[in-house]
């Protein structure tokens, strides 16, 4: 038999399993191997949306309004379609700004306002307390009912029970203890609770299995399938009515407004925000959740109507509360195990909601309500505390306990006035008030703090007046007159028929007026005054979240700086010194620095500290705390606007620019190359011009000078006269030589040179050249060796030109030899199909770099400024042109300090040679 202690121990065992999963999950998260990094787990965790309301309440609602239980699940399905844009944006913003709760989100968006964060927290707490009481009611009822197995006894009205016999109280206390253990073991800078997410995903599976099990049992076990159930329902008029929706405007209005309400709730219920945004591990998980979560909702709702109908058929006299059919049907059929499973399923549904919701709420209460007050309360001198992490944790624990107790209080005070679903809808209507501020916040930069405050306050006030107070009144705590007569007897202020709007259900009515007040005030107050500096910057950060690629955008708005040794203790006070140190170290490592001390005191560091702290105490308080450490010059709004404008302009232009610049680059690369070449040529031309000018003018100077001297004084000394005239002659020759060479070069290059090609013998040419340069050799006392092969084939070339080449090479060789120690070797021989001549000297040699240069026009080895060039720089280029003209090659082999060997080769003239041979043979 299912005795109390059996049920209790099974309950505790189940809670133990949950705890174990959570513990395991947290451990793995700390080790860096998260078990929840899985899109399916993420999607399942979202199913925390389904609480005992879904588990028990849906059937209850279906039993009274038929298909009318469904809109609550259609709403989230529809919303999922928009998640791709909206939810993704919220997640991205939250990650970038380290948002830890819905209050944090709102407060952060509207200028990091602590006041706004506090308001959101209050609304959330007040709004959710009824919802929590709903869970307590469901769990305690299910416990009580199961206790009486196999009899089916409805639980007594809660008010009737003395306090200490009320199981709900104990359940509340146990849940409080459990949640505290679950979620407040330590302070995490990111407010993530991976273990909790794992446990919630597990619970979602349990819920689904339990419900489907009982559904299948009722449909196929008790009855004979869907057809059977509905056929029987047809027979009963009351049941038949359930199959359709009543065809009235009010009914459709109700349908529509419930759908709309649930669309908002799936986003803005604190537990949904916590699970879907704060606990989100990876953006990508969202994609699977978009369809998996609606699928879950579909599956868990398939059997609702059959169970409802089945229950109504089974208990026609109405003695059994429809909310309990899920449990009482298996009980009535003596299915002990199934009943127990159902109970566990319900427990799952309830505990899941309570845990996540209270953790989310306690975080908000701690960060956005209590801490700001405490920090300002000078008397407490919290500024000087070294480790506030303990304080933070206790605040949260107390918050959890208080919230659960308040839930219990509401349960006792007002829980009986409504069926479960009714209570839940009141909470939905409360959190719907967050919608304008948040949706407006992420799409409208014009939303201001005042607007949000006004909207939230107005909406909340209307909600209180049209839903919360009436719920108290209906439970007897307030006079019912106020509902029927209106406040102070003013008919127009009837809370459920404000200003005469009648014909709407309670919820749609409240929704209409609260949204009107909320949105109206939000827009009006936002437009009334321009956003200030922080609002504008946060607005841009949020609305442009998809365009900002770095979260470093936030750091631009800190102009001050602070040393690490100021920031670290500050963070340590809230996170605990160890965790603060670890976080900073990780940050330093990410920047490639070895230690914390290497961190620069700049705006990025401050921004990092602020976001880190925001995780622990909320964005608004974090800003205040960090600002106290940082020496910051406040940015004027103009400067911020400039920064923002710059940023947006830059972004707008950058894309165009990128493309243009790519095209430009290609063009300029070509142009640049051409320009370089032109400049080079120009420079060379300049050099050439100035060198030639210089070369021309130098001999001219002497010629003129001496000519004038001789002309001035006819009686000049004879020896002097002779000397001077000799110089004039020599210089004239030099001048002529230069002019000739320049002209020569020009002719060869332009192809206008005259060539007298014939068969020539190189041996003879060499000998003649040597004879011509013998005086050079003698002057410098350079030795000359000859190694000329005997019979060398003829080549076809211009004799004079070849002599010119030989003279050039020989004179170069002599020029670069050391005086007295020089040695030049001339070789002539056959090399393959060519005839080759080498002129080797033992001079200083030519470095590899210069080997290319010496063949360039007017280029000579050595700087023209410091080592006076000894020639025109045209000799080698001309020689090369000549040799190449006849199909040969001219090159040099040398190394610094190894002397130089200039060689040229010319192709043999076969025909001529054969001819020659023949002639010689004759």
């Amino acid at each position, binding site marked *: 038999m299912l005795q109390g202690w059996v049920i209790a121990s099974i309950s505790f065992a189940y809670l133990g399993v949950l705890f174990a999963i959570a513990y395991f999950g947290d451990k793995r998260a700390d080790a860096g191997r998260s078990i929840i990094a899985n899109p399916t787990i993420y999607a399942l965790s979202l199913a925390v949306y389904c609480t005992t309301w879904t588990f028990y309440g849906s059937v209850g609602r279906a039993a009274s309004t038929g*298909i009318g239980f*469904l*809109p609550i699940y*259609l709403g989230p*399905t*529809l*919303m*999922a*379609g*928009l*998640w*791709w*844009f909206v939810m*993704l944006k919220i997640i991205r913003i939250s990650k970038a700004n380290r948002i830890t709760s819905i209050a944090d989100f709102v407060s952060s968006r509207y200028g990091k306002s602590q006041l706004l964060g506090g308001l959101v927290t209050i609304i959330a707490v007040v709004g959710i307390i009824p919802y929590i009481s709903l869970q307590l009611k469901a769990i305690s009822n299910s416990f009580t009912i199961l206790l009486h197995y196999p009899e089916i006894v409805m639980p007594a009205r809660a008010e009737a029970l003395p306090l200490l016999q009320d199981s709900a109280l104990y359940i509340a206390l146990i849940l409080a203890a459990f949640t505290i253990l679950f979620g407040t073991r330590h302070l995490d800078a990111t407010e993530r609770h991976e273990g909790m997410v794992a446990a919630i995903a597990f619970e979602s599976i349990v819920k689904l299995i339990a419900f489907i099990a009982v559904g299948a049992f009722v449909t196929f076990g008790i009855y004979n*399938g*869907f*057809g*059977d159930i*509905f*056929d029987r329902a*047809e027979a009963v008029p009351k049941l*038949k009515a359930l*199959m*359709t*929706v009543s*065809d009235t405007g009010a009914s*459709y209005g109700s*349908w*529509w407004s419930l*759908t709309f309400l649930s669309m908002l709730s799936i986003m803005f219920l604190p537990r949904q925000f916590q699970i879907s945004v704060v606990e989100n591990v990876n*953006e*990508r998980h*969202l*994609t*699977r959740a*978009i*369809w998996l979560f*609606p*699928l879950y909702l*579909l599956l868990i709702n*398939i059997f609702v*109507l059959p169970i409802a109908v089945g229950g109504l058929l089974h208990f026609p006299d109405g003695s059994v509360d429809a909310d309990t059919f899920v449990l009482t049907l298996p009980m009535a059929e003596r299915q002990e195990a199934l009943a127990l499973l159902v109970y566990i399923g319900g427990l799952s549904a309830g505990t899941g909601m309570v845990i996540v919701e209270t953790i989310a709420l306690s975080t908000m209460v701690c960060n956005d309500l209590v801490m700001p007050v405490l920090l300002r309360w000078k008397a407490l001198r919290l500024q000087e505390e070294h480790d506030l992490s303990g304080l933070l944790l206790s605040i949260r624990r107390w918050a959890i306990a208080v919230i659960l107790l308040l839930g219990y209080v509401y349960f006792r005070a007002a829980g009986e006035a409504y069926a479960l679903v009714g209570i839940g809808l009141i909470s939905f209507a409360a959190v719907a008030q967050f919608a304008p501020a948040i949706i407006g916040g992420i799409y409208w930069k014009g939303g201001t703090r005042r607007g949000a405050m006004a909207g939230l306050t107005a909406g909340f006030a209307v909600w209180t007046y049209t839903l919360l107070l009436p719920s108290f009144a209906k439970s007897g705590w307030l006079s019912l007159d106020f509902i029927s007569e209106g406040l102070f007897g003013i008919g127009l202020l009837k809370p459920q028929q404000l200003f005469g709007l009648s014909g709407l259900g309670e919820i749609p009515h409240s929704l209409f007026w609260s949204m009107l007040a909320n949105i109206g005030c939000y827009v009006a107050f936002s437009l009334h005054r321009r956003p200030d500096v922080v609002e504008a910057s946060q607005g841009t950060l949020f609305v442009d979240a*998809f365009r900002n690629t770095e979260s470093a955008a936030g750091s631009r708005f800190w102009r001050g700086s602070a040393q690490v040794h100021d920031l670290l203790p500050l963070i340590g006070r809230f996170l605990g010194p160890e965790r603060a140190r670890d976080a900073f170290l990780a940050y330093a490592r990410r920047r490639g620095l070895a230690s914390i001390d290497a961190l620069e005191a700049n705006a990025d560091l401050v921004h990092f500290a602020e976001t880190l702290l925001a995780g622990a105490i909320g964005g608004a308080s974090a800003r205040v705390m960090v600002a106290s450490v940082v020496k910051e010059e406040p940015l004027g709004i103009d400067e911020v606007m400039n920064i923002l404008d710059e940023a947006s302009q830059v972004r707008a232009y950058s894309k165009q620019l990128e493309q243009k610049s790519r095209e430009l680059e290609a063009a300029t690369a070509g142009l640049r190359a051409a320009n370089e070449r032109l400049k080079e040529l120009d420079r060379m031309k300049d050099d050439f011009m100035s060198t030639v000018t210089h070369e021309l003018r130098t001999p001219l100077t002497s010629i003129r000078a001496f000519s004038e001297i001789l002309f001035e004084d006819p009686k000049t000394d004879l020896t002097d006269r002779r000397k001077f005239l000799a110089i004039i002659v020599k210089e004239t020759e030099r001048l002529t030589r230069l002019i000739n060479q320049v002209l020569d070069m020009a002719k060869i290059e332009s192809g206008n040179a005259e060539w007298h090609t014939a068969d020539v013998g190189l041996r003879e040419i060499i000998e003649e050249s040597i004879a011509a340069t013998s005086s050079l050799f003698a002057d410098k006392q350079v030795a000359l060796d000859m190694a000329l092969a005997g019979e060398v084939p003829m080549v076809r070339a211009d004799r004079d030109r070849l002599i010119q080449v030989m003279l050039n090479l020989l004179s170069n060789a002599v020029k670069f030899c050391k005086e007295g120690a020089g040695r030049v070797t001339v070789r002539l021989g056959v090399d393959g199909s060519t005839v080759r001549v080498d002129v080797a000297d033992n001079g200083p040699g030519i470095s590899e770099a210069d080997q290319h240069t010496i063949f360039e026009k007017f280029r000579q080895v050595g700087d023209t400024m410091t080592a006076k060039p000894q020639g025109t720089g045209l000799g080698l280029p001309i020689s090369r042109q000549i040799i190449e003209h006849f199909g040969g090659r001219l090159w040099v082999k040398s190394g610094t300090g190894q002397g130089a060997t200039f060689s040229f080769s010319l192709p043999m003239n076969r025909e001529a040679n054969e001819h020659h041979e023949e002639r010689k043979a004759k």
Partner: protein
Amino acid sequence: MMKRSIVTGQRLVAAFLLGCVLFNYPLIALFNKPGEVFGIPLLYFYLFGAWALLIGLMVWAIERRKE
């Protein structure tokens, strides 16, 4: 970071809009009559059918995105 495939997003928004139409007054009134399909009441069948269709469309939109 998830690449924002705008097409997928638009398809999902289209699904949303379709859902708004399917699950609202005009169409619901259409099916709001007594009658049964495979033994299941008409409205019930329609709603769950449309629901399944909508989910199917979303699955298709997502699985078809170019990653």
